[in-house]
């Protein structure tokens, strides 16, 4: 017998994976119809959600705040994009086998690192491995030398900046500012068909569910507890015989891979990937999604990613000038008042209601708040005090004794 909140979760998942595409199949006249545009939009949001899951695993659980996840997202997206570019072949504006930008960059032969991407299977692997390996190297250097807390955040931010600079450079043969665009087919299937978009959506949704299952499995395992422990007291973990560096590295790589997958699914759905997705700002925005949704709870991360972006695409239409102000306010509000994000807010609400209901002998529905959905909700208000402790290396001399 499922708990009602668990049920809620499954229903939500079902609606996302099956409901939306089916609704898209309905005739436009039916009230339940979901337009291609909306479906495509949500497809994009779901890719963000995948990334958010990884980021949450890293930040919400292990307490490692990466401000450079745009890079891994970008790596995945570029890996996929490169394959799609090569698929275009001579159908491009210049009717050349080379990608357009190479033609106007006077590149005569395909650069060596492009060649492998002719192979679909290689691409599918690269989408995960390239970000993974990159994260492995970077993380190894960072965690081995015990760069922690804010230091790590700033280093990752620097990483985002330099990656952005490099990807913008046309000499890199990655399309410079324009990035990779104008994809025609997705592994042979023409992209401009609604059916393809629907397919992509379903793939993304399934990938999201998979990613969620993976993260849940990790957080439920003892390793998951070790991660939380690291956030609480890295030294204690160290002296309990675990190597925090390895655990951080592990989760860093996993989240990078998830980001890569997200990017790979993003590129064909949006039809373009540019360095603009890699830079400092996008990377921080990704953090907002998690923070807003509720860090430390997987569902929160997903909610945040979808919610924030939904609001963005609405605000940028109806109140263009206010978008940034809203984003900023959201940020400050979350940090100040809802350290555990929207989900946390709901939960506390739920708990209050639960309390009220429990007054009466027969509470109609179980008062278990949503928090018990899957995760060990690690960022209850307790975690607010938990945080500074969790960063021995944090430069603050002002820790209240």
């Amino acid at each position, binding site marked *: 017998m499922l708990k009602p909140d668990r049920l809620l979760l499954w229903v939500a998942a079902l609606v996302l994976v099956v409901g939306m595409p089916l609704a898209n199949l309905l005739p436009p006249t039916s009230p339940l119809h979901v337009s291609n545009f909306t479906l495509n939009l949500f497809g994009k949001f779901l890719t963000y959600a995948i990334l958010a899951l990884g980021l949450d695993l890293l930040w919400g659980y292990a307490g490692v*705040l990466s401000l450079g996840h745009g890079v891994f997202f970008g790596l995945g997206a570029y890996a996929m994009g490169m394959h799609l570019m090569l698929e275009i072949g001579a159908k491009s504006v210049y009717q050349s086998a080379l990608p357009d930008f190479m033609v106007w960059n006077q590149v005569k032969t395909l650069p060596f690192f492009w060649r492998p991407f002719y192979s679909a299977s290689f691409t599918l692997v690269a989408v995960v491995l390239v970000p993974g390996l990159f994260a492995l190297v970077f993380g190894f*250097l*960072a965690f081995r*030398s*015990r*760069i*922690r*807390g*804010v*230091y790590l*955040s*700033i*280093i990752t*931010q*620097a*990483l985002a*900046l*330099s990656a952005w*600079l*490099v990807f*913008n450079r046309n000499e890199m043969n990655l399309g410079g500012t324009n990035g990779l665009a104008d994809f025609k087919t997705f592994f042979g299937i023409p992209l401009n068909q609604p059916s393809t978009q629907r397919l992509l959506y379903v793939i993304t949704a399934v990938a999201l569910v998979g990613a969620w299952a993976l993260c849940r499995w990790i957080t439920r395992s003892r390793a998951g507890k070790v991660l939380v422990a690291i956030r609480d*007291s*890295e*030294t*204690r973990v160290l*002296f309990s015989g675990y190597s925090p560096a390895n655990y951080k590295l592990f989760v860093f790589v996993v989240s990078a891979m998830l980001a890569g997958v997200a990017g790979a699914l993003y590129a064909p759905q949006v039809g373009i990937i540019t360095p603009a997705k890699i830079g*400092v*700002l996008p990377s*921080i925005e990704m*953090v*907002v999604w998690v*923070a807003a949704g509720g860090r430390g709870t997987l569902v929160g991360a997903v909610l945040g990613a979808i919610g924030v972006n939904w609001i963005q695409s609405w605000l940028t239409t109806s109140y263009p*000038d*206010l978008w*940034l*102000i809203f*984003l*900023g*306010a*959201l*940020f*400050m509000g*979350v*940090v*100040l008042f809802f*350290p555990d994000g929207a989900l946390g807010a709901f939960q506390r609400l739920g708990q209050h209601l639960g309390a009220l209901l429990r007054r009466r002998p027969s509470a109609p529905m179980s008062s278990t708040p949503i928090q018990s959905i899957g995760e060990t909700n690690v960022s209850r208000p307790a975690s*607010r005090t938990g*945080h*500074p402790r969790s*960063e*021995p*290396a*944090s*430069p*603050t*001399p*002002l*820790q*209240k*004794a």
Partner: protein
Amino acid sequence: MRRFALALIVAAWLAAPAVGHAAAPAADVERALADLAGADVERREAAVAVIGKTGDPKWLAFLAALRDGSVYARKKGGQLEILVGGSKSTQGDKDVIEIKSAYDGAPLGTMPVADLIEVSADRRLRIAIKPFLDADETRGQFADPDANVRRGAAIKLANQADAGAAPTVEAALAKEKDPWVRQALAEALALIRLAHGDAAARAAAATTLGGLHSLSAVPALKRLEGDAGASPAEREAASTAIKKIERWTLLTTTVETAFQGASLASILLLMALGLAIVFGLMGVINMAHGELMALGAYTTYVVQNWFRASWPQAFEAYFLVALPLSFLVAATAGVVLERGVIRHLYGRPLETLLLTWGASLIIQQGLRLQFGAANVDVSSPGWLSGGVPVMVGVTLPYNRVFIIGLATVCVAAMYWLLFRSSAGLRIRAVTQNRAMSACLGVRASMVDATTFALGAGLAGLAGCALTQIGNVGPSLGQNYIVDSFMVVVTGGVGKLAGTILAAAGIGALNKGIEPALGAVFAKVAILIAVMLFLQRRPAGLFATRGRNAEA
């Protein structure tokens, strides 16, 4: 062809100075003036020649006015009268302008700009005017008290290398004292001789130019070196000179690079200083630092406009007012930020990071709504534009010299404040042990506010300084924030010395490799370097080692 003719005329005129002046405009000049007001390019050019040929200083002054675009025509009776416009001003709702007669510049009162037709001098006309004025101007300029003016004149003659100019230059050289002007004059003379002298003179000139390290002579010398017709002596002289100059160029390039490094370092330092203080002393990662800089910059902009409007005569001084003001404005904003939100988050650096980033977005968009998305223009005061020559081929821009100075002052001030003043004592006390200093009656909250205000103020100062080299827009801060953070992290938190050293190191390194790698990859290289550096010292250059704090 025409140009050559003009050159000859000028030469002739220079050779035999002080021709008698026509008292009143002659008929041909009258006609020329009429042509000037017309549209026919050829005739206007001819007209310039006519007026120029009179050699009358007053007419030359007129030509100068024409070139500077302050010549107008007004309908008078049937035809147009040519006038010279003076300073503009606003009377009531319309702009009016002082007008003077074309010839002797006798004031004719003021009249609305709208009623005047601008007699413009396009590029072509100005090229026609140039030789006449050059000839005359050089005279005036060589007499000018300002060394830079005299030097400018010399350089101009050097570029033209007209044979006719030689006597003027010699004359000037004879009575010139200032070394830089002498240098320029000698260079001009040598170049002229190189162009027009006989074999011996050319050889001598070549040697001289070599001795003068004249970079601008290299093309001419190269030509001479390769000139089959030239005598071996000349070619020999030329090639030795070229070698000499090239060696010198190497030196100057190094000096320039060094200065550029210092300049970049000082900028980084200015930006990072405030950050370092807030970060190091309070453990607050202030992502809004860049926006506080933007605030400082916009303050400068506002002050400038204010001076433009109210005190045009004191405009040069606006920057001196802007400096302290931008400090204050940013500091105030800082206090608001600190008291308003940040104080709730002490001891949680990551939260402060997110929070301040949110704040930065709001400030940014606020600025955009207030001042518009476009950049705003902040013009440099005279004393911050141009540069000072320090050695042949090296001119140090004043604005950069100024910023280096400013950075030095700020650092000194910080040191005094933190380590010599009682306020600094309190700050350090709170930094080290909040509870204890509270017991000792230090008002921690007060100190926090001051410290943050200080950091913010420094940001404002940096922003103000940046208006002199960069542009001022809502997203100004974004361009700098990451760099500043890198400096702070590399320097080691809470260590001024570290910050200074890091800024210097990064600046120098960056400028050292930029010529080779280009801007982007230089930056990337820096970031990688920092990354590897942190491998050795995870807590930066001057990390406080010591008994490990408890877990």
